[in-house]
């Protein structure tokens, strides 16, 4: 089981802040492809540039995943 969080414009476009994924994925890029296939809204939201964090640490598309991970997907940051 993986917990997925969306923030910013991605949260707004998908109309979803969090979801649980029960399928198994070895790497972040496989999970992202799965998420893109959930709906047209998800595909659109993930067609722009985005960043990924796994367990609150910035990650790459090649980062490995394990059961229980929290994966956050968000646009480039704009704080300050």
């Amino acid at each position, binding site marked *: 089981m993986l917990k997925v969080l969306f923030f910013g414009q991605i949260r707004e476009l998908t109309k979803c802040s969090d979801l649980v994924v029960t399928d198994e994925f070895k790497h972040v890029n496989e999970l992202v492809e799965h998420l893109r296939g959930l709906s047209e809204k998800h595909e659109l939201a993930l067609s722009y540039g985005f960043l990924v964090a796994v367990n609150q640490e910035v990650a790459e598309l090649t980062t490995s995943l394990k059961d229980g991970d929290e994966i956050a997907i968000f646009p*480039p940051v704009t704080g300050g």
Partner: protein
Amino acid sequence: MAEIFVDVTTDEFDQGACYTWLRQDDSAGAIVIFTGLVRDFNQDGKIKGLFLEHYPAMTKNVLIKICQQASERFDLGKIYLVHRVGELLNHAEIVIVGVSSKHREQAFLANQFIMDFLKNEAPFWKKELTDQGGVWVKAKQSDEASYKKW
């Protein structure tokens, strides 16, 4: 390692409290404090304010890591960093960064380093509030260029 204070809050912050805390560094010869404010305009005209979203489980840890990096890179006594979230009206304070150091150059550099890293690494997202609705702010290339120069 410098003493570090970091907070993320919806509340207004007190610049006086920041300065008073930094003044407790008896070895300090310089204190530099920066505050970032909500502008009342964007490239298309007037705005009403901002909504600042963040990733609560991650934000504070990222800010602490940025301060630790600044502490390793510069000769600092204390680092104070508070960032606000939620709805912020025009002219409101968004962020305060204060540092104390033996020397002013280190204090100026460290303060800029912290802001450049915060703008590129800390998980905050700004949405500008206008009469026509909300518009998500896009990351600026100039902020990325400032970050890469370090």
